């Protein structure tokens, strides 16, 4: 019997707003404990929530980018439960009227090799809604310490349909979602900073069956890799249970990234009864066409659409677009450079290889690079015109990165132009041949590789500025005499 895994992911994405969801104190990460609070965040007696407009803009934008239906009207509900990290002991959320419904995420599965694009699929979504984040509990000996800096940060909950069928698909889903969120400046989705959190609901069923099996909720998946490992491990566990004749128990399990195993969380005595009711302190949200149009105007091209376009319109290969596209600024940089020099592939290579290497070594973000699209375009043109040779061009690039000089100036300053005079080159070749009669004889006798013996001395004499093709031409002519 073969089994099929059925997985649904619940992803919480922290929105990149400057202030919190229901109060105007600043939002942020890594601040000293309890320095991002105000009476509303701490739920002091008498305080009231006020919506953050930017958070609404961001979730609508996310919904538009993901092809969701945006609800014309929605409201806020109180989700009532007690926990030390939840100041009001209710969370303001959206229960039966989420802001977004439907939609989907295009994902790319791993291909047969790194250089070959994998299959694309669409994972349908159920809904997206807005809520507020909770504080952070730090556990110490016998006590828990609570920091409310994170409490009240706007959180988008994205629920997928149970339409994911493997750990790899889950990984691809998260990667795609993260790129889209970054493109839209909606969130940075840095899991280490808690900006993206993921819980998985996993069940198995006999391959081809229609009904769903009992699902297990898996928590504490703290990285994309742990999501993949955790899901794979849980699917294996469920298959083992069923094959041993048992049944999968509906429960919540806690994943341990170190051991790769999960354990059952102590089942609570009572199921949660959240007693949802409409929050009387907040007014409903009405989204009209004008609001949606305005935001649509700000929506960027989606990453995979961009990738396809770059491949189609510029002929840039998959391996290079895969590097450029996940970073929206980088791909914009590339397009600007391509526009300026008309050899998109060459520009892409400079950016994907040399620019990224230099940025990495200097630990600089793209925005602070002294090399701008015009620099890249200029260098491409110089190489195309033969004014500088490829290996010299690489040195030019490094200098440009360091100083910000246009390529022509670097070439001139360092004398890196491929401007060897024809006479000089002729003379060096003749000298090289004359200096090595044995190789000359071997070549004339038919040994092709003998010609290489002359190239070294010629290139050294030319200090690398000679075009190897011309050198080869000249040598052959001389040897043919």
């Amino acid at each position, binding site marked *: 019997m073969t089994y099929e895994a059925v997985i649904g992911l619940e992803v919480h994405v922290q929105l990149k707003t400057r202030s919190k969801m229901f109060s105007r104190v600043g939002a942020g990460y890594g601040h000293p404990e309890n320095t991002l609070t105000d*009476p509303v965040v*701490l*739920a*002091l*007696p*008498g*305080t*009231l*929530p*006020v*919506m953050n407009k930017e958070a609404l803009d961001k979730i609508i934008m996310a919904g538009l980018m993901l092809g969701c239906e945006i609800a014309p009207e929605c409201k806020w509900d*109180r989700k*009532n439960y*007690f926990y*030390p990290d939840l*100041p*009001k*002991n*209710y969370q303001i959320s959206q229960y039966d009227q989420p802001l977004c419904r439907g939609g989907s995420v295009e994902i790319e599965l791993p291909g047969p090799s790194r250089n070959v694009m994998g299959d694309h699929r669409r994972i349908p979504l159920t809904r997206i809604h807005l809520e507020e984040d909770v504080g952070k509990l730090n556990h110490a000996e016998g006590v*828990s310490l*609570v920091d*409310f800096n994170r409490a009240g940060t706007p959180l988008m909950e994205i629920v997928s349909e149970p339409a994911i069928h493997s750990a790899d698909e889950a990984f691809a889903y998260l990667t795609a979602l993260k790129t889209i969120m970054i493109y839209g400046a909606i969130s940075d989705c840095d899991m280490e900073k808690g900006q993206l959190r993921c819980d998985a609901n996993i069940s198995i069923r006999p391959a081809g069956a229609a009904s769903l099996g009992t699902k297990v909720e898996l928590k504490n998946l703290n990285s994309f890799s742990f999501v993949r490992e955790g899901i794979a491990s849980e699917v294996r566990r469920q298959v083992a249970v069923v094959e041993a004749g048992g049944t999968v128990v509906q429960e919540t399990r806690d994943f341990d990234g170190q051991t790769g195993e999960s354990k059952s969380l102590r089942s609570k005595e009572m199921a949660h*009864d959240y*007693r*949802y*009711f409409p929050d*009387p*302190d*907040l*007014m409903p949200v009405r989204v009209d066409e004008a609001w949606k149009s305005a935001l649509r105007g700000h929506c960027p091209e989606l990453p995979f659409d961009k990738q396809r376009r770059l491949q189609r319109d510029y002929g840039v290969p998959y391996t290079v677009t895969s590097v450029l596209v996940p970073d929206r600024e980088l791909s914009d940089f590339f397009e600007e450079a391509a526009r300026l020099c008309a050899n998109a592939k060459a520009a892409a290579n400079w950016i994907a290889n040399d620019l990224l290497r230099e940025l990495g070594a200097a630990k600089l973000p793209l925005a602070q690079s002294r090399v701008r699209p015009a620099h890249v375009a200029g260098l491409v043109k110089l190489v195309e015109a033969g004014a500088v040779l490829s290996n010299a061009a690489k040195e030019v690039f490094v200098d440009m990165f360091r100083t910000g000089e246009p390529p022509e100036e670097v070439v001139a300053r360092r004398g890196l132009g491929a401007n060897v005079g024809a006479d000089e080159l002729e003379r060096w070749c003749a000298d090289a041949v004359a200096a090595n009669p044995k190789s000359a004889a071997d070549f004339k006798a038919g040994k092709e590789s003998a010609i290489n013996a002359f190239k070294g001395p010629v290139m050294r004499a030319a200090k690398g500025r000679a075009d190897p093709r011309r050198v080869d031409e000249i040598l052959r002519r001389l040897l043919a005499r």
Partner: protein
Amino acid sequence: MSEDLCFSTISQLARLMETGALSAEELMRAVVARTKAVEPRVRAFNSYDEADALAQARASDERRARASRTGGRGLPLEGIPVGIKDVISVAGQPLTASSRMLEGFVSPYDATVTRRLKGAGAICWGRLNLDEFAMGSSTENSAFGPTSNPWDLERVPGGSSGGSAAAVAAGEAAAALGSDTGGSIRQPAALCNVVGIKPTYGRVSRFGLIAFASSLDQIGAFARCVGDAALVLGVIAGHDPRDSTSVDAPVPDYAGAASAFAKSGRRWRLGIAKEYFGEGLDPEVGAAVQAAIDVYRAQGCEIREVSLPHTKYAVGTYYIIATAECSSNLARYDGVRYGHRSAATTDALDLFFKSRAEGFGPEVKRRIILGTYVLSSGYYDAYYLRAQKVRTLIRRDFLDAFAHVDAILTPTSPTPAFRKGEKADPLAMYLNDIYTIGVNLAGLPGISVPCGFTRGGLPIGLQVIGQPFKEAELLAVAGAYESRCDWGRRRPRL
């Protein structure tokens, strides 16, 4: 003289201070002295900070002096001591809701109404007693002991804003702020012979008011006369970006508008709701209210009967909606970030259970339980959703009536002040609110004005119910009666 000051209206005090005959500091000293003299018997205050009040008074005198030097306008409540119900936040002052849960809590921020009072030059005076978390109609539910009705110390002042009503009645403040969710300003005003106004829902910001029932709560004012109530309302009303339920509409000059109406000799069309004069109404109260109606009639007002057919469902509707909302609003009181924390707890869960059990009194617990129940799985539709629908019908009753009348007259309370301990049964206590509760459910403004005394010397109140956001008309109608009598000028014998 000093006692006279304590029973002067705001307008009278303002005139004295404007002419220099009285300083804010002198006034505050008189009020403090009066408070100290009567508090052992009345117990209106949970606490008061004499030094702070006198400092505020001195600052007021300095402001007034500066303003007169520069020819600037004086502030509308300059130097006037206004008592604050201990559910309204004043920065640096205790905020207890008369509960052990918040014993020792000091608030770091000002409620919006507090900011407005201070901006108007008023002196925020003391922390006034109430039924714990504003739940009750007698102030007997206070964890710190009941307040006594200044007119008969064996009896209750009403509730939940009993301290506020008693303080004004006893001359311990020129005015006071209270809150009204089901009648908690109007009913104690009636029982204590003062004016009490609850504005339209959304007229006054709730930011800084300890929430009881979010869709019903409003802050309002106690005063010696309708004119004073208009002044205080004009100061505290207005849109507040910190309260999403507050309405963005301009605040008229209530005092000016009310007196303009009075001068215009307008003949009001007044409704008498037949459902409010039936069983359970004390005959002396009924008679006093009828006499008040006659006064309106004599002024040429048109009196007609109106029907509010869903009146009998008002108390039931209220106790579902208010308890549901309060069960959620009071969840934050858990001993984690502030408030009472139980000493002997084994884990965080235990902390919640025990701190709340120790911190809350029985009425609060009852309402939390009832509210939790009506919201719980399987019961939401049957109780909460249904109650919100009946609420729509109750509001509709009023709005239909207002098609034919400008305001509706009713008794404020079915009985005068009852003895402490007399209404031990919760349901009996809830039924007390029968005349005031529908007004909160419908979101309308309402005011109680003194309209007589029982043979035993207990005050009786007349309620006027107005149309949404028409507080000026409401105050004018109330003033039209007040101008023909002087019940409000009597003083309790203390």
